[in-house]
């Protein structure tokens, strides 16, 4: 993931990520065909059930991205005193995963609202699942905002890491909200240790969609990581150029 290390690098792609990119496009195309054409309509919901194939994988990817953010934040906080470059690597990973997590939480909210209008008869209700999900979205937006605040990079990264760990508390609350409270939202469609109540083709389409969205998310995280690294290099170069021009000016005036 750290292949972009030279300041003259203009792109974030490598041969591997190009392959991953092509794979992501192909996987998404197949997901679209399976989800929209091959998978059957639901006996009750009819065609509206196709939202399942984007809504459910999106929130799972968001959960996964936030787990990655948290693990990276812990590793950053643990390792920053020993090796600064490792620390910054974890910080970049945390930031890029959180960005992707926020995007997929947004997709979950939008697709959920559209699905809700067709099935529940309303776009929005303040039930436990919807409330905690929107809170998750806002909290991680706050995390991303914190990462943009002007401060010493290490101090800023440390604050962001702490914020990431606080924000993560909401992830299990979102997931289990449908079990802990009475909600309009149905119980989880995919849950560890619980047999899914989805018939064959629909179940396999859902699993495949989760895989396809995972590839897209991995591709996005890698590229965002590299963009963040390039931004850092640009800032370092700008700072070095400013210092050197200032020194030149001082030498000239003496």
């Amino acid at each position, binding site marked *: 993931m750290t292949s972009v290390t030279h300041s003259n690098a203009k792109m974030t792609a490598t041969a591997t990520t190009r392959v991953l990119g092509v794979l992501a496009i192909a996987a998404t195309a197949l997901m679209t065909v399976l989800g929209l054409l091959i998978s*059957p*309509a*639901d*006996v*009750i*919901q*009819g065609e509206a*059930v196709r939202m*399942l194939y984007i809504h459910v994988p999106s929130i799972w990817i968001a959960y996964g991205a936030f787990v990655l953010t948290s693990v990276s934040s812990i590793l950053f906080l643990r390792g920053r005193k020993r090796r600064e470059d490792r620390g910054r690597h974890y910080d970049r990973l945390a930031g890029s995963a959180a960005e992707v997590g926020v995007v997929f939480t947004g997709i979950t909210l939008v697709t959920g609202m559209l699905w809700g209008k*067709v*099935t*529940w*008869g*309303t776009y929005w*209700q*303040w*039930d*436990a699942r919807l*409330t*905690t999900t929107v*809170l998750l979205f806002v*909290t991680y937006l*706050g995390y991303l905002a914190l990462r943009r605040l002007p401060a010493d990079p290490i*101090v800023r990264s440390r*604050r962001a890491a*702490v*914020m990431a760990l*606080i924000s993560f508390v909401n992830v299990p609350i979102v997931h289990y*909200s449908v079990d802990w*409270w*009475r*909600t*309009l939202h*149905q*119980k*989880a*469609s995919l849950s560890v240790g619980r047999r899914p*109540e*989805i*018939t*064959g*083709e*629909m179940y396999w389409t859902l699993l495949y969609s989760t895989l396809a969205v995972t590839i897209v998310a991995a591709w996005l995280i890698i590229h965002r990581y590299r963009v963040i690294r390039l931004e850092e290099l640009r800032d370092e170069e700008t700072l070095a150029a400013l210092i050197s021009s200032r020194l030149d000016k001082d030498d000239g005036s003496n």
Partner: protein
Amino acid sequence: MDLTPRHEVEAPDEMRQKMHRRRRRTVLVVALVLIAAMAFITAQGLRNATLFFRNADEAVEQRVELGDRRFRIQGRVIPSTVKSESGITTFEIVHDCVVVSIRHSSDPPELFKSPWIPVVLEGSWVIGEIRNVAGSDTHYFASDRMLVKHTNEYASANEQRLTDKPPEGLLDQCLFEVPAATS
């Protein structure tokens, strides 16, 4: 002129430590405020969410204390009881063998037509003698908002057909019979 400082200047290290401590305190205060705000939003949201609806049996049990207050009631629609006339849909819902008669005054969502679909209705109790599949009742529920609460069960429309048969176990313990729907 004596320009010697009257007090000893703090060592840079000591100053840095002091600044560091002050900054840490500020960050801690901001973090605490943020956590408190989040807790407040969560509590506000969940206060409504934890009692998002009352099941039909609970709503009947709490009828006296609920009075004419607005609340949400949940139950499965008994298909044979659905009738629609001049913008009013009347039907009965059941939960835990308790039947509630409903008088609904707005357009039901599309999925309402599915037999035995769970619905959440917003409205209040109204006094009025009414007959239902379980006998008779002194109240009915007047609602103006309906939400369909679909389950996490998905079945292919190619393999399964909608039937008027009640979901497994729903009426097993009930002392009344539900008439078949006339289509």
